[in-house]
């Protein structure tokens, strides 16, 4: 459980970022964990259906998006490193770059969705698409959420809102973004590749 009085107790340097974001990251990972487990369970009983429709996914697009997110995570790492050296300008630039890659992810995924929807495929087409669209869309929303957070943090960094000694916000946003990245790194092989 979280301690509501944590502001009265001395704090250490780990984990980085705000404690609250870690509670929510754990909660998020739990939700995705449950979804992955349910997916694995459902797939076991519908192997043929899942393998058949998996063929119709665009793995190249998925791979591009995987590389995009990993790269953006690296940019975010550089942003944290920059602010630790007190370089707010550079920190802001890395964050904007990461956000641009987030946008690229959204565009690629959007084109994929567009392709499915134009073929009349939706959440209720069959169990595979329920999972594929459901889970990737839930993740898609997380990317958007992460972009909003990075946007706010980058904006504040640009105005000199963070320093080498006080940059909880940057670490908080970075932690959330890494979580979004991490979920995709599991989601991609699970849904696009594994059969």
């Amino acid at each position, binding site marked *: 459980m*979280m*301690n*509501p009085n*944590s*502001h009265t107790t001395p*704090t*250490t*340097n780990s*984990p*980085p*970022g*705000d*404690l*609250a*974001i870690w509670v*929510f990251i754990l909660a998020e990972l739990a939700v995705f964990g449950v979804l992955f487990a349910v997916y694995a369970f459902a797939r076991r009983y519908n192997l043929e259906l899942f393998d058949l429709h998996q063929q119709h996914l665009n793995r190249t697009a998925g791979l591009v998006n995987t590389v995009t997110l990993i790269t953006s995570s690296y940019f975010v790492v550089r942003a944290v490193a920059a602010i630790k050296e007190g370089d707010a300008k550079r920190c802001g630039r890395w964050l904007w770059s990461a956000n641009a890659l987030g946008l690229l992810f959204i565009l690629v995924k959007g084109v994929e969705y567009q392709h499915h929807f134009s073929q009349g495929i*939706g*959440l*209720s087409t069959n169990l595979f698409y329920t999972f594929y669209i459901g889970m990737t*869309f*839930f993740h898609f*929303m997380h990317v958007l*959420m992460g972009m*909003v957070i990075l946007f706010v943090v980058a904006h504040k960094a640009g105005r000199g809102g963070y320093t080498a*000694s*006080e*940059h*909880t916000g940057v*670490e908080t946003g970075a932690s959330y973004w890494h979580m979004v990245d991490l979920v995709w790194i599991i989601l991609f092989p699970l849904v696009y590749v594994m059969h």
Partner: protein
Amino acid sequence: MSGAFTKTMARNIFYGGSAFFIFIFIALTFDTVGALPERDHRENINEQVILGKRVWENNNCVGCHTLMGEGAYFAPELANVYNRFGNSKEAIIGFIKSRPVDGIPGRRSMPQFNLSDEELEGVAEFLKWTSEVDDANWPPNIQG
């Protein structure tokens, strides 16, 4: 740096999290409404079904019965009553018509609603239509 969990942080999570899930919920609402025609067979909703639903509502049937499991638990489930009564509208009409005005001593009894023939036909059509909705194979068996 501090690991302080501030009230502002909690507030942001409340607003951000709520907006996030409200948006997803609205998106899913649209998807569901779009997917419904395949499941509810709305092309079969005719004047009789519409009248039947109104009779169902105006006599507060849901105050005793469940319909697709929703309602009161005092009287039998009716989403599959059409099937339970041998796929017969006449059986449904006959049952409703024959309820004694003063009830059955010591037992639960459906009131006598004095419905017109047209209304009876409507209710039966409504229950038949309901039995044909794709409700993921619920109830588990014919007993409801």
